[in-house]
């Protein structure tokens, strides 16, 4: 009984632990300093939107989390594990738990939709048979409402459809953490709203924690539990959408006008 209680307490404490902890991050490209002493924590099932001007280092930040870029200094802990010093195998294991939606979708244009979705699946879950793979692909496409596109080539799909396929490909591995790099950029307002709703629905369904990079304030309003403003490489301000919207600080206000 006591043992069971301990286990429950442990699970509860694990649940309260932040899923991502970034501490004192520094990143520069030559003389161009992008991140300077940046720190941020993301709680389980929390959606944090990072706002910032173009070139402020928002994409650099999430690329550091997934290991596509290495910070010059600082620490990034993902689900309790330090990812900055990981080798190739360690990074591959960490990436199983993190999904990344690229700004330009990064759909493999020489492969069909089915092959695109199978690609991460076959590499991470090598024990799946053909039927199981197909089932998972169909399930992922169904969740984004695109099951009819399974044998289509990316060139035959619209911008919104490509975004949905990219989302399905990312979510097929059921990641615990999602990183979205400007998910609605380049889409018309109606499609943007659809993508926002889809992200929200899938986040609730899969119980993921997310960092969303966005300029689209309607998207931020719908998705964000917390908004972080990245300015001069630092976390300039953070709070809920409402809190920041009512701020008098011109550096914050400019994003909400």
């Amino acid at each position, binding site marked *: 009984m006591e043992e069971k209680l301990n286990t429950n307490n442990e699970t509860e404490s694990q649940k309260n632990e932040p899923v991502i902890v970034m501490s004192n991050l520094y990143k520069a490209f030559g003389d161009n300093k992008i991140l300077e002493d940046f720190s941020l924590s993301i709680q389980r099932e929390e959606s944090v939107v990072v706002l910032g001007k173009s070139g402020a280092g928002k994409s650099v930040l999430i690329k550091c989390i997934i290991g*596509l870029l290495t910070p010059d200094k600082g620490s990034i802990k993902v689900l309790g594990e330090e990812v900055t010093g990981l080798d190739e195998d360690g990074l591959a294991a960490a990436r199983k738990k993190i999904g*990344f939606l690229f*700004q330009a979708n*990064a*759909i493999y244009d020489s492969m069909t939709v089915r092959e695109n979705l199978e*690609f*991460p699946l076959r590499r*991470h879950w090598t024990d799946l048979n053909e039927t199981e793979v197909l089932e998972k692909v169909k399930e992922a496409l169904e969740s984004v409402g695109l099951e009819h596109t399974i044998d289509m080539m990316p060139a035959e799909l619209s911008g919104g459809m490509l975004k949905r396929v990219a989302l399905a490909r990312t979510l097929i591995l059921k990641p615990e953490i999602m990183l979205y790099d400007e998910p609605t950029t380049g889409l018309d307002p109606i499609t943007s709203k659809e993508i926002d709703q889809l992200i929200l629905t899938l986040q609730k369904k899969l119980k993921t924690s997310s960092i969303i990079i966005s300029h689209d304030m309607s998207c931020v309003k719908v998705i964000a539990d917390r908004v972080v403003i990245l300015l001069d490489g630092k976390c300039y301000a953070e709070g809920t959408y409402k809190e920041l919207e009512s701020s008098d600080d011109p550096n914050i206000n400019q994003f909400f006008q």
Partner: protein
Amino acid sequence: MSIISSIRDFLDETGKISRFAGRFFSHGLKPKFEIKELLSQCYLIGYMSLPLVALTGFIIGLVLTMQLRPSLVTYGVQSELPVMVGIAIVREVGPIITALIFAGKIASSIGAELGSMKVTEQIDSMEVSGTNPFKYLVATRVIATSLMLPLLTILADAIALFGAYIGVNIKSVTNIKFFFMQVFESLSYSDIIPAVIKTVFFGFAVGLIGCYKGFNSTKGTQGVGKSANSAVVLSSVLIFVLDLLTVQLTNLLGFN
């Protein structure tokens, strides 16, 4: 000042290519291999280049024979035409022409493909998906070019010799069996083996340079075009440099 900067750029580029080649040997050749992708690349790079290589081989054999004939007639040794053409094709013309055609077709396509994958973040996406893009994209293509070019060269040599037979028959009548007997009697293994081995290096150069240029493509469509173009130019120059080195080496080893 500009000469110094050009030399520095040249050395910098050479260093980067050497490091890329080193990465191929240290990472690309380690298991687990991407066999399915390798076979797919062998098909695309080798099989799909067959018509072009065959046509070029035939024309080169025919033209070479027609060009050589008047000179040999002048010296009264036209009967040696199959021998001369045979040696020229197998030792030099076949490998170098096939490699250059191959560089034009394959280096540009690899450079453009990987370049566009790079600028559209498909390579990053692959990495995030738990796949080593160097193994999946670079190793498979470099191995495929190194394996396919020797096979294509052997085929091009055979078709060029057939073209030479047609060329001989334009002005005189020669039996095909007699023609090929004359060709093969004049050839030895020391003519064939070094010529085939050097095409492995040519193929390696084409694949490596194509992948290097594509992998290091700068942002934008202009960058992709530049990658494809410079992949062809650099791999063609490298083929000539490697050819020069192999000739020197075969001379040193007494194969000539």
